[in-house]
Every structure is written in structure tokens, then in C-alpha cells.
């Protein structure tokens, strides 16, 4: 073999190797596949079960109809069904199209829209196979349904004629005016509720049976009469034709006056531990000192109204007779007042026990809230029956004496005092128990009054009748309370 031929063969070999490498690289990227011609996917078929059987306008079904269907796919399996229907109102002459939806269920209870006397429902079901192909024909059924009975809405709160405070804007303490309602549907169940304020837009459907009207939904001025309407929708999409409408009376508190003393202390006979109304008034007059204030006696001046209460920045309420107090009846007004920026001082005998033992308070807590826990910020308490409270101590260490001359001589101190064993969050001890003798030293330091503040309101709660302190102690106590009300807080 000549040298030139060898050289040429090497070159051929080099070129051959290069081609082989190229072919190999290309080959490694190719997908392995079977031979032959692939079959096209065959779409599935659908059939609707003949239950319930077709009916006519003389034999109407309920708007809720349980229907079943099935599908077959010769080259795969059924992954779902596309369901849609059209409602023809036979009397009214119009129709409603229900948008198609996809479901994997083969049985469903269909809530056919049935607002007319006779409603013709034409349902179309199309099977979908595992490759996404939809039955091009599908199966249809025509059924007739009778008119659904519309739902009826009832208003729980506010009752007609009720007036409610309103604040210029929502806050953590006051979200807005709460509206509570319910509805019934004799031939089904309630799908949702919607509310409209001052002829504005209807709110989106909701399942919650309460609604908070925030100030931005109200026309100006906020104070005055506002029109509210509530409607419901049942399970067959029938909307109540005549919504519940009522006038909402709102009062915007002005707080332009400083102090109001609400005299809720029962006028007694003037005997020991039974002070007269005049004696109690005189005690508060002395305690208030130079502070300008107005008074309102619930017995002589009549029921306290929101219009009056809303004018004052501070309200001092005293129920200093343990035999009777109307405080519980005013819990909603006081709650409303405080949440919209009012400041409350509450003094009384057995105040918390009255709330605990009142069934109406418990029954209405879902609307008005828990006055003791949420407004007074008392998480747990008990009553100290022992007549051993000789004085109370302030956080600064000052001692405010009980006026023993107002008690029977056999008592060593004030009795039926509330021990606030667990102040609520952000509540601070305001006054603590000072025991009369060594036998009752275990009571020393117990919290008998607390203060609470947040950026919206402030509360001082005293678990004993403050008018049983000496006049001088009363003056100091009011000074302490006023200092708290005037303080600034970072949080």
C-alpha cells in the first residue's frame, strides 16, 4: 500500500469518525417511540339518568332537584362533567342562563331558579375525558319546577326607635353600628344576606347574620335618620322582593361639656348605712370641689338619654346603694357611650354581681358584648363580705379613709367590697384594700378599683360605694381620677 493511499485512508477515517460523532450526538437527543400511526382521541358520551322522570306544567317539581348522570369514554376515562342549565319563565316569558361549571360528581342537588309560577328547566350535561375532550353533543333533560317561596328577613337589632351613637370614623373600640338580623325560608335554606344604607349599593351577599355599618357608608351628616334595608336570598336564588327597611337614628356625641354625675343611687331613709339622696349628693358636691359638673337623677329627672349623655366628656355614675340599681338596664347606652369616645367613672355596691345574676345580660351579650369584661376590663372578681375595709390605698401610697360614722358600730370597715382578682388586659390597679386589723391582713393589697385606657376611651371602676369614704378622702379620690383622665399615655 502506497504512502499516499494510507494518508488518504486516515483522512477518510477521520471524516468518518466526525460524521459518526455527529450522528451519535443527534441520536442521543431523539425520543424513543413506538412505531405505527397513533389513534385520535375519541370524545366521551354522556347520559342523564331518568330520575326524576320528565314532567309537565301540571305536575311541577320542587326547585331543588337531585339529578344524576354518567359518561363513557372508549379510549380513556371520564374526568368530569360540564353542567349548565337555562330557566325559562313560562308565565313571564323571559329566561335566566346559569353559567356552565365543571364537577367530578355524578349526582348533585340542583337549585333551579324558580321565581315564576311555572319554570321550565333545560339542563345540559357534557362529559369530559382524561385528555380534556368534551362530549360535543351531551345529554339534556327538561323539567318543570314550581315557584319557590321567597325568604323572609327579620331584624334583631336595633329595634325600631332605638337610637345609637356614631363616631366620625371606625376604631379598634368602635368598628361601626352593628346590625343583627336573620331570615327564614319555608321551602329551603338561606343562601345569603345583603344590606343597603342610605340608598347606596347593595352589599355583596354574605352568610353572616350581622353587619357593621361603618361611617363611610353613611351619608352626611352622620347624626340623624338613615335608611337601612336588608334582604335575603334562598337556596334557589330567589331574592326577597320586599326587604326589611327601617330608620336608623344615629347620634353623634359632641362631648362639649365636661362632667355629668348620674345619680343612680337609691334614695333611702337616712338611717345608718341608708343615706338619703341629699346626703349622697352633698358628698359628691364636696368631692368634686372646683370641678364644674351637671347632675342627672334617674328618679327625679327621668331616664337618661343618649342625646344628653353624648354631650359630656366624662360621666360619673354612682350606684352606691346595694339594695337596688338600674345600672344593668343602662349597659347598652354606657357601652355605646364609651366605645365612641366617652370617659366613664363607675362607683357602686355589688355592681358586678348584678351583671352576673342577670339573665337578660347573658342573653344579649352576643349583641351588646360583655360589659364587665370588655368595658370595665374586669376578667375575674369576687365579693369580700367581711366588713374590714378601713381605707383604700392609691398607687402613690396615699391612704383614703372609709367614713366609719356611716357604718354600724359593730363593723370594722366597709363590707361587700369587690375584689378584682384579675384585671383585664391593659387595666391597671387604681385602689387597693387596706385592712382594718391584723386578722384581716390577708386582704391588704387586693385590687378594689381599676383604671383602663386606650386611645379611644378611659374607664375607672370602683368596686365599692365611693360615697362611704370620708369627704376629704373623696376629694382626693376625685383628684386622682381626674389626674388619670388628663394623663397622656404612650400606648
Amino acid at each position, binding site marked *: 500500500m502506497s504512502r499516499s493511499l494510507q494518508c488518504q485512508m486516515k483522512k477518510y477515517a477521520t471524516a468518518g469518525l466526525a460524521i459518526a460523532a455527529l450522528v451519535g*450526538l443527534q441520536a442521543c437527543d431523539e425520543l424513543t417511540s413506538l412505531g405505527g400511526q397513533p389513534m385520535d382521541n375519541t370524545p366521551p358520551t354522556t347520559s342523564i339518568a331518568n330520575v326524576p322522570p320528565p314532567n309537565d306544567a301540571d305536575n311541577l317539581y320542587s326547585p331543588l332537584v337531585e339529578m344524576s348522570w354518567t359518561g363513557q369514554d372508549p379510549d380513556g376515562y371520564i374526568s368530569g362533567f360540564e353542567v349548565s342549565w337555562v330557566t325559562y319563565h313560562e308565565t313571564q316569558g323571559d329566561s335566566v342562563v346559569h353559567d356552565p361549571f365543571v364537577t367530578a360528581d355524578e349526582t348533585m342537588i340542583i337549585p333551579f331558579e324558580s321565581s315564576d309560577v311555572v319554570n321550565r328547566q333545560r339542563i345540559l350535561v357534557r362529559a369530559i375525558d382524561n385528555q380534556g375532550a368534551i362530549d360535543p353533543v351531551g345529554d339534556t333533560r327538561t323539567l318543570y319546577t314550581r315557584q319557590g317561596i321567597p325568604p323572609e328577613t327579620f331584624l334583631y337589632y336595633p329595634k325600631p326607635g332605638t337610637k345609637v351613637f356614631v363616631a366620625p370614623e371606625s376604631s379598634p373600640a368602635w368598628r361601626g353600628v352593628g346590625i343583627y338580623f336573620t331570615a327564614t325560608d319555608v321551602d329551603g335554606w338561606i343562601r345569603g344576606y345583603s344590606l343597603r344604607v342610605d340608598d347606596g349599593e347593595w352589599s355583596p351577599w354574605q352568610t353572616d347574620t350581622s353587619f357593621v355599618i361603618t361611617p363611610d357608608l353613611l351619608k352626611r351628616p352622620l347624626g340623624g335618620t338613615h335608611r337601612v334595608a336588608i334582604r335575603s336570598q334562598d337556596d334557589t336564588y330567589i331574592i326577597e322582593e320586599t326587604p326589611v327597611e327601617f330608620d336608623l337614628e344615629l347620634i353623634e356625641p359632641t362631648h362639649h361639656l365636661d362632667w355629668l354625675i348620674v345619680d343612680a343611687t337609691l334614695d333611702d331613709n337616712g338611717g345608718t348605712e341608708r343615706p338619703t339622696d341629699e346626703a349622697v349628693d352633698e358628698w359628691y358636691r364636696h368631692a368634686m370641689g372646683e370641678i364644674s359638673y351637671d347632675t342627672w337623677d334617674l328618679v327625679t329627672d327621668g331616664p337618661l338619654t343618649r342625646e344628653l349623655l353624648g354631650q359630656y366628656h366624662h360621666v360619673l355614675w354612682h350606684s352606691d346603694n346595694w339594695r337596688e340599681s338600674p345600672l344593668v338596664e343602662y349597659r347598652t347606652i354606657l357601652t355605646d357611650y364609651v366605645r365612641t369616645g366617652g370617659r366613664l367613672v363607675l362607683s357602686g355596691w355589688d355592681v358586678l354581681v348584678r351583671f352576673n345574676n342577670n339573665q337578660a345580660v347573658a342573653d344579649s351579650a352576643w349583641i351588646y358584648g360583655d360589659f364587665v369584661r370588655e368595658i370595665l376590663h374586669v376578667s375575674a372578681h369576687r365579693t369580700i363580705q367581711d366588713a374590714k375595709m378601713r381605707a383604700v390605698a392609691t398607687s402613690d401610697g396615699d391612704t383614703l379613709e372609709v367614713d366609719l360614722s356611716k357604718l354600724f358600730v359593730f363593723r370594722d370597715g366597709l363590707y361587700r367590697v369587690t375584689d378584682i382578682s384579675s384585671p383585664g388586659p391593659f387595666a391597671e390597679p387604681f385602689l387597693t384594700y387596706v385592712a382594718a386589723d391584723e386578722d384581716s391582713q390577708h386582704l391588704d393589697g387586693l385590687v378594689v378599683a381599676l383604671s383602663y385606657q386606650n386611645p379611644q376611651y378611659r374607664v375607672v371602676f370602683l368596686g365599692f360605694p365611693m360615697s362611704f369614704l370620708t369627704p376629704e378622702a373623696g376629694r382626693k379620690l376625685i383628684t386622682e381620677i381626674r389626674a388619670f383622665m388628663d394623663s397622656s399615655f404612650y*400606648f
Partner: protein
Amino acid sequence: MERHGKRIRSLSGVLAVLAASLALASCDMTKVTDLTEPGLVQVILRYEMPSDYPAQPGDSLVVVTRDFRLYSDTTYAEIFQHPDQFMFSLDSLVSVNLLDISGAGAPVQIAYSPVAPLEYDRLIFEMSPPEWVKINDKTYPLRRTGMGAGTVVEVVEPITVLEGQTTVVHLTIAVHKALYRLGDEFIFLAHADSYSVEGPQ
């Protein structure tokens, strides 16, 4: 014969070049770089509060920082607490008491470790608050915001890391903005009020 030889030579040359180029194009080869060591990233946190802030000695708002990640688009590098932490298989956790008034304004290193030298576009880490906050000897419930999303701190800033050099990310958190009262509870919102990048150097 001589003409055939020339044609064959030129054909074989073209084929060889074609094959080589196709082979290079079709294979995902590891890119070789000249890098020999990573860069270092240090994250420094300072917290501050206004002069009238009611914090006292003994107050407590201990937040835990963890899961530091430097992102370059969707690629990320983890930053640990110490440069050698990966050797001990330890989770990177650093606690900071944001109500410790003695430490206000002082730098606290919350992460420091090597990462791949790259141009990163943001830093993300978690700052988890406790369930309670202690202020002036009182304990209050503390709630997080946003179903946990309120505990993620994101710093969107170009962060350059160079080989063998250190890049420092400075973060400042204003406690009075991160901790606030809503009704009868405190809310904590993790965030960085200001940040800057120093280096690489």
C-alpha cells in the same frame, strides 16, 4: 488523484469543525471559572426608639432572626450566623431584645458567613416575635400580622459580593413602628426602617 486528495482534505476539515461545534453546542458543560474562594456577608442590626419611649430596664421583646437568604433573581444563597457554622450543622438563630434600652443604637451582628460571589438583588430573613411582650413589669399578649407574613423582612437593594471581600448590610428597625397597640393587644410588624450596604472591601 491530487485534486481528489484536496477535496477530501477540505471536506474532512469542514466535517471535523462542524462535529466539534455541534458537540459543544449540544452538551451542557460545566462552566469553568477562575474563582477560588467565596465572599463574606455580614448583617448588622440596630434598633432605636424615641427618647420618650416608655421602655424600662427589664422590658422584653425578644425577636429571633433566622433563615437569611441573599437572592439573585430566583437563585439564593444562605447566610449563617458564623462563617464556620455549616460545619456544626446548627440552625442559624440570633435573638435580639428590642426593648433592651441599654442596647438601643448599638450594632448587633445577626448573620455572618461566606456566600458565592455574585450580584444579589435583595436580602430576606425572618424576624419572629414572641407571643408576649413585657413592658414596665406587665406582660401583654402579642399578635403577629398577616398570618406570618408580618415576620418576614425584605431588603430590596443591590448587594455585591466579591471573592475574598466582605460586604456589610446595615439594618435599622424603629421599635415604636414595629410594636404598636391595637385594641387590647400589641401587634408586631417585622420590617427594616432603613438600610445600607457597605463594601465589598
